[in-house]
């Protein structure tokens, strides 16, 4: 997760230079307050922000609030991305894609649209998967399904970066955490380093406290770069 120089949007610096390293196959949780620069960083890493360098490989990217062409159904949208819908549906049964096969983009709910977007991003099998706040609009069935898919990723699966507003979500699915504040990386390390050990509730509370301390500047740990 390297940013050279600054990322600017509408003339304003939204992310400053920095580099974070994470182990291969890690699911990295990107967390920060609203306006911290998470979505801008995602767009930059996907190579779709104006003036962003083009990535050397295809990137599986699911935007924060995806929309699809209103006139195409889910099967047509899958073909637009080069996938057969039946293959996609069989590969990710936990996302319950069969429920939306015949729905057009214009009538899908926010959660259904997000589900399809996530499936298309994952199916690319690219070295980097970027999921921008994927859990928020999903119903509990698909949320569990996505958690299982991310948990089942092996070390050969490349890096998955998942942005979130929730420490609990990060603790559930991520092995690594990056905290952003004011467009800067302020912490990067294993989730366990912040959450510690013990009961799940205790870990979550410690993680939330740790993130809060980092965001308020009480205990900033520098990331490399």
């Amino acid at each position, binding site marked *: 997760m390297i940013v050279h120089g600054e990322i600017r949007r509408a003339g304003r610096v939204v992310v400053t230079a920095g580099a974070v390293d994470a182990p291969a196959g890690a699911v990295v949780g990107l967390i920060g307050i609203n306006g911290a620069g998470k979505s801008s960083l995602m767009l930059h890493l996907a190579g*779709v*922000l104006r003036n962003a360098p083009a990535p050397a490989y295809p990137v599986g990217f699911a935007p924060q609030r995806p*929309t699809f062409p209103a*006139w195409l159904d889910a099967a047509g949208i899958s*073909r637009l991305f080069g996938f057969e819908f039946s293959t996609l549906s069989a590969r990710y049964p936990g996302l319950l894609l069969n429920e939306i096969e015949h729905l057009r983009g214009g009538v899908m709910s926010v959660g259904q649209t997000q589900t399809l977007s996530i499936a298309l991003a994952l199916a690319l099998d690219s070295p980097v998967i970027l999921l921008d706040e994927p859990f928020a609009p999903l119903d509990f069935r698909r949320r569990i399904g996505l958690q299982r898919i991310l948990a089942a990723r092996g070390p050969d699966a490349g890096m998955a970066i998942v942005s979130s507003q929730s420490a609990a979500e990060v603790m559930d699915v991520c092995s690594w955490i990056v905290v952003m504040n004011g467009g800067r990386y302020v912490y990067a390390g294993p989730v366990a380093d912040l959450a510690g050990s013990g009961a799940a509730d205790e870990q979550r509370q410690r993680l939330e406290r740790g993130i809060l301390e980092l965001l308020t500047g009480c205990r900033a740990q520098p990331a490399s770069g």
Partner: protein
Amino acid sequence: MTPFAALRPAPAYAALLVRELGAPRQYVGPAVAIAAGVAAAWLATFVQPGSGGMATILTRFDISISSVVALLAVLRTIDRIVVDAEADWMLQHVAAGMSRMTYVAALVICVTIGALMLYAAGALAFGVATQLLTGDTQPLATAAARLPLYLLMVLGASAFGAAIGVITRGRSAIHIALLLIAAPWIGMWAAVVLRENNPLGGPIRLLSYPPPRLFSAYTLAHVSYALLYAGVMLGIALSLAHTRIGRRS
């Protein structure tokens, strides 16, 4: 990406064509064009009976009508690019390594076919109605013979729209396109005003279009010009597609 990989989403791009032609509201345009063609043929029997009159009406008005259709093609292409260029699905599509150029080419082809169908519906309806009402076959033959010319005309218009759409940003693209289209006409009419006020006087000849004949030197010159123009505009649109399509500001 291999050329074959770039063609993977081609079946879905065909849905763009469905969007242009197949959605229920898209039938309104051709339906109105057919109704207008039939009505024009019916009215013409009162205005100027006889086969020569029909042919004259068609010859005089089809260039103006096809120009309006071409203008609609320009606006339609720009409108689609404005809407699609920064759409989330396009960002995801481009990040996944799909081709921006395939999108632009598919859009131009689909808008061209859609606009040509609109024109053809009206012109052929006029021709068929004239033949049924008066037995005159010339309007239908003329409309059918000219369709290839209008195909090039609308293709050039769509390519122009695509080029303007990828060069400029947002809704200003439509204003710039209209200005570029209007500028030569404004210049021409300014020249006419100057000539009319010329104290030396003299005859004024405006748009003295000879009646076009297919395969005449006049027609071939226009075909060559239209092909060159469409090619250059499409080349500009395709080469600049990476600057606008699938980019968020």
